[in-house]
């Protein structure tokens, strides 16, 4: 099929607009992170005369583990998101296996219930959690965040996993056993390779959700002992009380953003599949 140059022009403009809008804030925050307090207000994407500086990054890590405003929250973010993801995926995989493969009353109710919980207003649980966590000692701890993260991580994981597990030809397991494989071999050599990609995709998306959380992180923590990066950013004060912490916030933002973007782009096909899994009836 041949297309006119007008059509090419039309699509080019559309694609360019999408690209610029998507990249704009990222490019801007990277630019800010490389500016000095003297040039931070110049409004330019590229500093005059190539005046880049890495000072904003250096001050983030100054003072080591206890003195740095950033290292501790970064470790908290990684640990809390990882642990939450593992717990959610294990619990959800059991449920999703049952829903995809077994026949039992109530499975539609479980799916609809999970969906309802995904839309639950998280602010409504803040008061009770704040009160309970303070009285049982979970306030400002890792479990104090990991438990509430189940409100969004579990429904998301169950939904994606059910959609993926429904596509698996489970009969292959029996076929392998007929061919002489033990049940464990059949599971490990046949089912596991089929289930792993979907499970991995669900894990990526759950991780991104936990990594993104802000509401629970600022309400249920009070210090860097368990504060995650998004919450820590909101309380950044900068290296001196006379300069706005713009550059430091930008540098910290770049550090927690760029790896995730690279990761997302690397696994983009899977992520699109995961995001739209089950969106279309099937």
């Amino acid at each position, binding site marked *: 099929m041949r297309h006119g140059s007008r059509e090419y022009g039309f699509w080019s403009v*559309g694609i360019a607009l999408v690209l610029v809008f998507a990249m704009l804030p990222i490019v801007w925050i990277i630019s800010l992170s490389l500016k000095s307090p003297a040039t931070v207000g110049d409004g330019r994407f590229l500093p005059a005369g190539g005046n880049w500086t890495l000072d904003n990054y250096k001050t983030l890590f100054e003072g080591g583990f206890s003195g740095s405003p950033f290292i501790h929250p970064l470790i908290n973010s990684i640990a809390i998101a990882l642990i939450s993801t593992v717990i959610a995926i294990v619990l959800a995989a059991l449920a999703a296996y049952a829903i995809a493969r077994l026949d039992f009353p109530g499975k539609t109710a479980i799916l609809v219930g999970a969906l309802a919980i995904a839309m639950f207003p998280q602010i409504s649980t803040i008061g009770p959690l704040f009160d309970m966590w303070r009285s049982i000692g979970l306030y400002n701890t890792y479990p104090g965040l990991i438990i509430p993260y189940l409100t969004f991580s579990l429904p998301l994981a169950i939904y994606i996993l059910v959609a993926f597990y429904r596509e698996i030809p489970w009969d292959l397991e029996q076929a392998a056993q007929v061919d002489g494989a033990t049940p464990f071999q059949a599971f490990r050599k046949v089912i596991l390779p089929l289930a792993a990609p979907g499970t991995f995709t669900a894990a990526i998306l759950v991780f991104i959700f936990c990594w993104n959380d802000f509401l629970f992180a600022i309400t249920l923590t009070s210090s860097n002992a368990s504060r995650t990066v998004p919450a820590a950013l909101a309380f950044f004060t900068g290296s001196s009380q006379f300069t706005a912490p713009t550059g430091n916030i930008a540098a910290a933002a770049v550090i927690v953003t760029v790896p995730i973007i690279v990761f997302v782009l690397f696994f983009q096909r899977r992520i699109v599949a995961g995001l739209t899994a089950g969106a279309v009836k099937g």
Partner: protein
Amino acid sequence: MNAAAGRLRLGGGGPAATERSREERRLGWMLCAPAVVAMLLVTAYPIFYAIALSLQNLDLRFPDQTSWAGLTNYKTVLTSSLWWTDVFNTAFITAVSVTIELVLGMAIALVMYRAIFGRGIVRTSVLIPYGVVTVVAAFAWFFAFDPASGFVNHLPLVPDDKAWFGGRWSAMSVIIMAEVWKTTPFMALLLLAGLTTIDAGLYEAAKVDGANAVQRFFRITLPLMKPAILVALLFRTLDAFRIFDNIFIMTRGAQNTESVSILGYNQIISRTNLGLGSAVSVLIFILVLIIAFVFVRVLGVRMAEGRPGAT
């Protein structure tokens, strides 16, 4: 149709099949139990707890003065103009941002579906906002518009000293733009999934009958995508109604830009007034139930077709 159910059909009715189906039912419930119990523990239990808190005079600054309050907390909230301003702000931000997202998302979905080149680039760039933490994006937009560090005021036609966060509607516009930036990708991907289910033969037939592109969009694409659009709207509406991160970072609710979630946070965490704050929480929960009810009952969204995933 899953394999186990198929097997059961074949076995049909005999005592062995009944025994097996009973076993299967037990196994199914056992496997689902941990996830179901966990989900109820982190949502249903706190909601009942919040209702209990909302019926008390409970301020953590004066714990000895705790007493039964009945419905006075609700009366206080519902008669305060701040609550109604915040409900309006939240509804306004939700309505405007979801509308823009729907139009933009549909345009991007069409580009991803129909573009004669560059589909990969669009999909890649659309996924970028999805991977960016909302707080980071909020800071990026804040710094872009803030006169002290931004580039927006250096653009032509924009006054150099425009204080975007000094006025209600200009601050609101930036907040809405940040919301749209972050969540349009999800909308676009959901709509793309809906687009791919439409039978291409319909377009060919319409073309043969002389329908132009605009007619084909309004007569074929839109009607057939109605279920997908409604599900996407339901999810995005309820998600946008929870708006918190962007407002917290950009204005903290100043200039009359406060949302109901910010109000709840201020009452519970900043003022440690658990009684009043919980009344706000319960009222937000009721509002969300009403919105969901309208979508499901009035607009006929089929919950079983939807899925979570919006940020």
